């Protein structure tokens, strides 16, 4: 896994922001497996559980994403486990814009260790 330089995003994090920002713009939240599917659209190889959820955790801690657990009643009605639904925050969108323009994202990205939101 690439070592992170301060104020930068890892390639997977940029990909997550790219996919997530598109969905967030459409008013949709996304869940882990749905994201993995979209990320693997080209390679057909799903990202590892640990890789994906570590990145999501890191991005939550950094304020680039926000997450809520789906209402239990909705999940029960659909007959499946509750989804944890993510959305790109304004800080995440700004970080993505910065990446696209070749800037560092130190102003919006505050790396934090490990914990999940």
């Amino acid at each position: 896994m690439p070592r992170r330089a301060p104020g930068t995003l890892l390639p997977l994090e940029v990909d997550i922001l790219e996919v997530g920002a598109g969905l967030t713009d459409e008013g949709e939240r996304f869940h882990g497996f749905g994201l993995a599917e979209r990320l693997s659209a080209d390679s057909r190889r799903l990202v590892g559980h640990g890789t994906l959820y570590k990145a999501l955790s890191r991005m939550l801690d950094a304020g680039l994403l926000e997450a809520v657990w789906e209402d239990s009643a909705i999940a029960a009605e659909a007959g499946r486990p509750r989804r944890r639904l993510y959305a790109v925050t304004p800080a995440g969108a700004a970080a993505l814009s910065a990446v696209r323009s070749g800037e560092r994202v130190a102003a919006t990205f505050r790396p934090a260790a490990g914990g999940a939101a």
Partner: protein
Amino acid sequence: MTAPLRSVAHRFARQAALGWTLRITIGLPRRIAEDRRAELVSDLWEQADAAARAGQPQWRLALSVLMRTLRGMPADLAWRAGVLRTAPRTAPAAVAVAPMPLAAPLFDQTNGALVTDDMATPENDDAARLLAIGVAANAMAGGWGGAF
């Protein structure tokens, strides 16, 4: 939406993924551990559902789950280490070395009825195809788990 059918191979792969996640979340703050476990349960269900809708063979689904688990292990360990650096432990580290086949059902119970695997008669012969990978996954889980 219907619950995905599970072959022996898929159940095995799923238990390996759940067992591994149980291992790497034992001793972490409760909310973080529960979130991670519940998120994996959801992920596994969604993948199985997507595979069923796509008509994907069960052995391929099982292989994908195992490979996702294996590929994610280094990140899982790094994530765990990061959490432990910033949060106090909530359980003795020795618990984390419980054998995966025993630990996984416990995990299932903590996450509700959606993971009530049974030990049904094998309906597919694809379990053998995945046995080698599964054993490797178990061995890796056991080897690394002891380091916690």
